[in-house]
Structures are given as structure tokens and as C-alpha cells.
């Protein structure tokens, strides 16, 4: 499918969608969003890219095999689970720390963020694996 409109729109939309997905991922803990939705947005971005050009181009642009992303995502999830054990707490118990940002602001960072990141990567990996293989069919 080659369409000038789709090409141009994709070029504009791609960075926006990807940034939006990261935004969703990070803010997910307090506002609507989260790893799953963020992963879907990112996959949608790449899916549009694959539609506008083709799967081979999209694969080249993403630099990493989507199947590998599934593995990395699952490992990230497991890793976030195991950190609980380091602190003598159950598997998957969330661990939190915070960064001081100036006088009053502080940023809380914890293993659930890593967990969410793992979900994010896995979702992207799965959706893109399916879409790319279907597209290449």
C-alpha cells in the first residue's frame, strides 16, 4: 500500500504517538495510563508505520526483533519481582525509593515502574510480532 497521505501522516504521527506512549507509561501510576495502554499506543504507532511502508522497513526502523522484546519485557517483570526478595519481602512486593527534586518536590520511584515497563515491552513485542508476521505473509 503506497499512499502519499499515509506516508506523510505517519511521519508526523510516529514521534507524537511514541512520545505519548512513554508519557502514558510514566504517568500511569497516578493518572489514566499504564504499561498496557502505553504498549498498545506504541504498537499502534509501529503498526501504522508498517501499513504505510511495509513490515521490512518497520523492522529496520525499530532496530530490534519484536520477539526479543517479549523476552526482555518478561525478564524485566521477573527482575522487578525478585528485588522484593533482596529486602526480605515476598516476591513481587513493591520496593520504593525517592529522588529529591529541589526543596519540596520529590519523585517516587519503585519497582512497580520496572514492572510496568516490562508489561509495556511485552505488549509491544507481542502485537508487533503478530502484525509484522501477518504483514509479511
Amino acid at each position, binding site marked *: 500500500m503506497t499512499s502519499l497521505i499515509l506516508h506523510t501522516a505517519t511521519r508526523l504521527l510516529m514521534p507524537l504517538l511514541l512520545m505519548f506512549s512513554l508519557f502514558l507509561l510514566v504517568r*500511569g*501510576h*497516578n*493518572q*489514566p*495510563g*499504564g*504499561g*498496557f*495502554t502505553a504498549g*498498545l*499506543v506504541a*504498537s*499502534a504507532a509501529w*503498526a*501504522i508505520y508498517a*501499513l504505510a511502508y511495509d513490515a521490512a522497513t518497520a523492522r529496520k526502523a525499530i532496530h530490534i526483533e519484536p*520477539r526479543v522484546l*517479549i*523476552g526482555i*519485557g*518478561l525478564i524485566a*517483570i*521477573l527482575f522487578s*519481582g525478585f528485588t522484593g*526478595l533482596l529486602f*526480605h*519481602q*515476598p*516476591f*513481587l512486593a*513493591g520496593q*520504593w525509593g525517592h529522588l529529591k527534586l529541589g526543596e519540596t518536590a520529590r519523585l*517516587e520511584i*519503585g519497582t*512497580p515502574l520496572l*514492572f*510496568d515497563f*516490562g*508489561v509495556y515491552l*511485552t*505488549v509491544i*513485542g*507481542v*502485537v508487533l*510480532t*503478530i*502484525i509484522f*508476521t*501477518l*504483514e509479511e*505473509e
Partner: protein
Amino acid sequence: MLAPALVRWRPAAAGYLIAALPAGLAIYFARLLSVTPFGGQVASFAWAPSLGLTFSCNADGLSLFFAVLISGIGALVAFYSAGYLAGHPHLGRFYGWLLMFMAAMLGVAFSDNLLLLYVFWELTSISSYMLIGFDHEDKAARASALQALLVTVLGGSALLAGAVMLGIAGGTMEISALVSRREQLQSSPLFVPALLLVLLGAFTKSAQFPFHFWLPNAMVAPAPVSAYLHSAAMVKAGVFLLARTSPALGGNETWTCVLVAVGLATLLIGGYMALFQTDLKLLLAYSTVSALGLLTTLIGLGTPKALEAAAVFLLAHALYKGALFLVAGAVDHGTGMRDIRQLGGLLRAMPKTAAAAAMAALSMAGVIPLLGGIAKEMVYEVSLGFGPWIAAAVVVGGIFFFYAAASAVFGPFWSNTGNSGPSIPPARIHEAPFRMWSSALVLSGSSLVLGLLPQKAAAPLAGPAASAAAGAPSSLELALWHGMNPALVLSLVTILSGAGLYAARGHVRRMACKLAIPWGPDAAYRSLLQILNAIASGLTLVLQSGSLRYYLIIILLTMAGLAGIPLIGQGGLHWPSQDIDARPSELGIAVLILLAAVIAIRARSLLGAVAALGAVGYSVAMIYLMYGAPDLAMTQFLIESLTVILFVLAFYRFPQFEDVGSRPARLGNAVVALLGGGLITALVLLAAGIQFHHPISDYFAHEAVPRGHGRNLVNIILVDFRALDTLGETTVLGIAGIGVYALIKLKKK
């Protein structure tokens, strides 16, 4: 996990490096064993407390004894494999599985929690499956690996069921705690079924009759695997489980009867089957089966003396049988055959291997001053205390051991005669490489050293194990010479009749072969598997017609039947009592959904139907949004969009609507659809009318900020409160993705 990379990086040194790890562990465990007090040390931390699963380890005499064996023999086997499998393309993979197996075995040895033990138990089954089927291009290897897996996993499931029942009966999953609640546990009505299930698990793993058949078949594995898994380590896991649970579960009639009966049966059948084996490895395998039977018997008898004998015999057996399998591998490597009728006079060509073989065989035959001899006398002494029948059975077992040892080693290495059939040209026979004979020599040499220094070397190893299994501290006294006593007499009888039996080996083989029953558990396994396969393919033919439409019809009808019939039967169907007041906007969306659904049904093109379905999805998302569930709405929107993309990709190549079927078929479809939809509607109405508990959302809302550190409830539930569920779901998602990939790629070929 790093092993494959290591082998690729430095193939020559990898064997040494990999062997060094378990060797170091063995020394560490041995040192720990000498300082560990009787009760052991329990370290635990919660893993999933809500499931009663804690990661608790118990390092007592028994587990350390096993750990020393596992890691010590593991080190030698890893070292040996470097020679045996030198240059094999999958050597790295082999080491990976070997180390994983070793880790799983150590896990079994140290776990104090029944569920944890089960997890490691299954890991040993899986890694052994990969090791038996290592030669995966060989059909027999694959079949044997599958057989071993099926049998041991069947036992594993029984073990899990038994463990859960024990947990319910005893109120805890910790073995050390179950021991202290022995009375409560054994008086529970669940006790006997739980006991039988746990025993089933142990019996399948330790190849007890009638589950012994998988072990000889597993001999297709590479020799070091046989040496390690099938003599020293994995098959001992079942024995270990028995010893580990005996303080909690033992000491009653069921325990003793079952263990002694099964153990003796295994001892005799295994020994008998060994009589007419001509393949070196099969011969050793059947004698292993019978040795495991002896161990089970001893644990079943359960007196402190019996457990001491069991521990010493286990140590002796692990050393000599491991060594003999390594020797068998060396013989196979050096001559290219394993038939004991054709092997002979290898002494000159393979002197170093012969030395290792001789020591191991003497230990196996039960000759003093090797450890096997001491173990044998202890066993005899114990069995004499339980009446003549048990003693007689054990002595017959001993004679079988002697015979097996003689035919496995004396024949191939010393005798020059008696070789029927073509012999191998001597030029082709060569001594095994250094790594192979040295490993075998170290193992069998340990039999001699431990035998010569029983009080100094063997007792500190086996003693704590025996006391841990007995549940009471005991001091193990080992000596080479017990003086003239009945056990010594029996020992002499064993040696003489064993030698007599071997002298008449030609006749014995023929006789035993004639008497052997052609129909055994192995045949039963095969026919069972065939029946299962037939049922499965029959069911598949009926259910998996390959037409998506039929799949949907079957799924929907099953669902409607399973959920709908009880629903109607129990009068759960009634019109909701409260009035429905809907805002105009909601009504509008409802109309929109209905309209889109009708369009989807009437659509003449696939893309049109997809678009209409998309509209339904978006409208549902609008409803979520109105009811304050933005997360859900957002997900729904995205899923709908992606679904449309997927459909477009999939349908791009499809023809226009093919024939949608005749009128009656379409009517049938409509009925099915109405049933499915109606059921869901009824369920939703029912669910809305019922409130069992205080809604859990209050709890989550309250705990979100202090414990989840966030304000988005949905996300906190996903990644924190219910993270385990999410972990499972994500894994399933990943597997589904890979599955789709595999299906599409496979179809291409």
C-alpha cells in the same frame, strides 16, 4: 545459563571451569556438614505468603549429605563429559542442562517447604527430559525421554496433590513444622490418601515397581547422564523424599507395609531382570532399580539402624554405580559396543579404566574392605532383625548384585573366553582419555578410601543424614570388621552363590530369559499411550474441524450449556427488581450499539462488518468513559483500533464474503449467537443484583497511596496488589504472540 557461551568461547577449558563450580560447592557442603547441629538450620523468606509458599531452606544432615553427593558426583560427571562429548556440537547446551539439573536437585535437597520442593522436583524432571533426549535426532532417545517425563511428571502431580492434602491436614507446608505436628497429621482422615499420593511421587521418581520401566529405557542418554541422573542423583530424589518425610509420615502401618512390599518387589524384580541383560548399561540400570528397591525397603523398616544402613548403602551405591556407568561410557567410547557377550580381555587395552571398574565392582559385589561391603553387612544385620523372610529376600538381592557386578566388569575386562559372536579387532580398542578414566577412578577410589576409613570418612557423611531421617540424633559407628556374626555368614553365602551364579552365566541367562514375562508395565505404558493418542486424535477430528465457524459454535454452546443450565436449574434467572433509569446520552449510545450490531450482521463485505464491529467497540468504550473508567475506555479504544488494523491485514487477501451458508444453517448460527449473548446478559443482570461482600474497591482506594504509592487505582492493582496475576497474564500474552508467529511461519513451509 552461561555454560553454552563458555563452551563457545573456550571449548578446551570449559570442562574444567564448569566442573570447578560443583566441586567447590561439594567442599563447602562437606565443611558445613561437619559443623551443622542435629536440627539443621532453617532459613526462610516469604515468596507468595498468600499461597502458603515460602522459600524456606533447611540445611540439616540429610540435605547436606545429599548436597555433597549431588555436587561432588556432579563435578566429576561434568569433568568426564568434557572427554566423553568432546567436540560435540551441542556440548554447551549439555552443560547448561546438566547444571540446571544440578541446581534443581540441590533445591530439592534443601527445600523445607513442600510446594517449593515440588517446584524443584518438576525442574529435575524437565531437565532430565532434555538430558535423556539429548541425542534428539534419535527416535528412541526421544521416546525414552518422553516416557521418563510422563512417568515422573505423573508422580509429580501426585506429589503436588499429596503435598496440598498434607498442608490442609497439618496446617502448614513446612516439613520441619509438619514433623512437630506428627500426631495431628497422622490422625487426620486425609492422611492415608495424602501419604499414598506422596509415595506415588517418590516411587515414580525412584523407579520403584511398577514404575521401574522408564529407568532402563532412559539408558539411551549419554553415559555421563546415566551415571549422574540414573544412579547418583535423580533417582535418589525419590529416596530422599521418603527419608525427608519419614519423621513426619512414617512410623505407621501403611507406611511400613507399602514401602517394604514395594521395595522388596523392586529389589527382586530389578535383580532378576538384570540376570539376562547383555547390554552393559541396561545391566547396570536394572541393578540400580533393585538397589533403589533395597533403599526403599530400609526406609520403610524405619528403625534408626535401618536408616543408618540406608544412608551408608546410598553413599556406597552412588559411588560405585556412578563409577560403573562412567566405565561403561569409557568402554563404549573405546570399543564402540556394550554387549557383554562380545566384550572381553579389555584389561590390556584399558588398564586405567579397568582399575576403576574393579574397585567399583568389588564395592558393588559387597566385598570388604570397600564401602559396599560395609554397607552390605549393615543391611544384612538390619534385615536379620525383621525375620527370616525379609532377610532371605535381601540376601537374594545381594546375590543378584554380586552377579551383576561380575558380569559387568569381570567378563569384559578379565575373561578372554566365553565370547560368543564376533569380537572387535584389538587395534580399534583404545584407552579412554584422561578426563574419563580419572573421573571414574576418583569415584571408585572413594569407595575404597571410605571403606578403609569408615569411622573417619564415611560416618561423618552418612551419620547426620541417618539421624535427620530418623528424627532423633544417633551416633553412627562404622567398622570394617564386626567379628563373626550372622551377617558375616550371610555375606559369605552371598559371595559364594553369586560366584556360582556367574560361573553358570550362560545357563542363567537362558533360563531367566525363558521365564521372563513378555508382558510388563512397559507394555502397559505403551498401550495406554496408544489408547490416549487414539482418543486424542479422535476428539481432535471431531472438535478441530478447521472451520472457525464450528469452533465458535462449539465454544458458545459449551459455555451456554455449562453456565446456562445450572443457572436456570437453580432459579437464578429473574428480572432485576430495581428500575432502570438511564440518561438520554446513554440511551443514545445503546441505540448506536444496536444499530451497529445490525449493520454488522447485514454487511455484505468483510471490511464493512469489521468497521461495524469497531463501532460497537467504540460505543462500549464511551459507556466506560461515562461511568468513570477512563483506563478501561482508553484500553478499549486502542484494542478496537488495533483489531481493525489486524483485520485489515488478515482480510486483505481474503475473497469477498464466501457463501454464508444455507438458510437453515444461518438460522442455526443465529440460535447459537442468541444463546451465547443471552447467557452473558443473564449473567450480567445476575451479577449486578448480588453483593456478597463489601466491595473490595474500598480497600484498594484506601490503601492505594500509602501502600501502592500512586493514585491510579487500576494501574496499582495491576502492577502492585495483583502483580502476580499480571505476571501470569503477561506470560500468556507472550506465549500467544510466539504461538501466532510459529503458526504463521510454519504454514509457509
